[in-house]
């Protein structure tokens, strides 16, 4: 999947990804030539398909964790299984708040928060960290 600005004949670049909280996703791309922006909008099934491939639209900033897809997508899976000591942990409050996210995008949202924390050297995700990430990443309603 690539986005081409027809007027400039330039490949559009990934700008940001937004998850409004209803299972849909918006991914914004911009033309480096004229600045025109366009948004890719996916319905819940398409969002699930994309996350089911184990890939991140826009690219990954940190490498995938072992069994990331299985642990985040399987109902009842042991999500703490196979975590590296010292890896980003979730506080009880944060975990509770995560439960309000629709289950089928919960894994993806959890991964995004995890990447946000890992990039900033945050070892525990709390509701305060989630608030900050929401603002920074555009995770409205999460």
């Amino acid at each position, binding site marked *: *999947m*690539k986005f*081409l600005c*027809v007027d400039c*004949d330039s*490949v559009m670049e*990934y700008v940001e990804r937004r998850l409004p909280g209803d*299972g849909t996703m918006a991914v914004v791309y911009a033309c480096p030539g004229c600045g025109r922006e366009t948004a890719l909008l996916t319905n*819940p*099934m398409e969002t*699930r*398909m994309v996350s*089911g*491939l*184990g*890939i*991140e*639209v*826009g*690219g*990954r900033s940190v490498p995938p964790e*072992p*069994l*990331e*897809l*299985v*642990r985040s*997508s*399987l*109902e*009842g*899976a*042991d999500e703490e*299984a*196979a*975590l*590296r*000591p010292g890896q980003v942990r979730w506080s009880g409050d944060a975990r509770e708040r995560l439960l309000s996210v629709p*289950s*089928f995008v*919960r*894994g993806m949202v959890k991964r995004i928060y995890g990447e946000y924390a890992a990039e900033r050297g945050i070892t525990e995700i709390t509701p305060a960290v989630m608030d900050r990430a929401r603002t920074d990443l555009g995770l409205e309603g999460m």
Partner: protein
Amino acid sequence: MTEPSAPRRIRTYHQVADPGAESIVEQVVDQGRRLRERLDRVKRVVAVASGKGGVGKSAISANLAVALAARGGTVGALDADLNGPSLARMLGASGRLARGDGGVEPAHGAGGVAVVSMDLLLPEDAPLRWRGPEEHGFVWQSVLETGALRELLSDVAWGDLDVLVLDLPPGTDKLARLFDLIGTPDVLLLVTTPSEAARHVVAKSARFVAEAGAEQVGLVTNMATWSCPHCGIEEPLFAADAGRRLARESGLEVWAEVPFDPRFAADTDEGFPLVLSDPERPAARALSALAERLAGG
């Protein structure tokens, strides 16, 4: 009268070669690279398949893995039956998978076989349920199942293995999925029973693997015969003889005929594969001979 304007030229997907324009493909390529790196450390992948359910694939996988390990090999066993996992139980492996330096550490079962199964990731009795929108589940569930199988292969620290036994679920499509993921396995065992119903289904798998160009393919007939515990007379358990008919029709060779033995299922179900619990019984001897053949070949 105005001339019609020429259509705008829009580059096609393949004409847009800008590096970095396609992060999704990059990630999929990276997934494939990690899978190959993991499998490069496995000398032989032995896939146990059928197409038909209920023919004893998992019991044969468990016993074969243990019999191969008993010959001094380093053996891993992956339960690729995500929806009906039983291999961990049959190999007596339990507990929680832990993270090691090189990925997820497999559990260890009977005979020291390294084993990974969905059973080790889900609570007891929990069905396999993927999180997703209720509508169109059939569309995305197969994507998730393939992704899960890929992760179970590539994210587990299998280490250097002489043999990795893959216990596949029923369905010819699962063979296609496996071939897409890892290519043709080094050895493929097609398990059948002597029944005509089994032959009808396994014949489809045999045709698939022939068309896919798999070379090392053998038939295993489970429940081939039955021995009277009192007089020892051995008789066919089924009226039909599907294994040998399949061999004639498909050109494949029967590599093992495993006699029916209630102890085979009972011991293996309890985590004590028969090749260890009572290696002199005919069913155990048949599977040990199969292991010998594979270890030698």
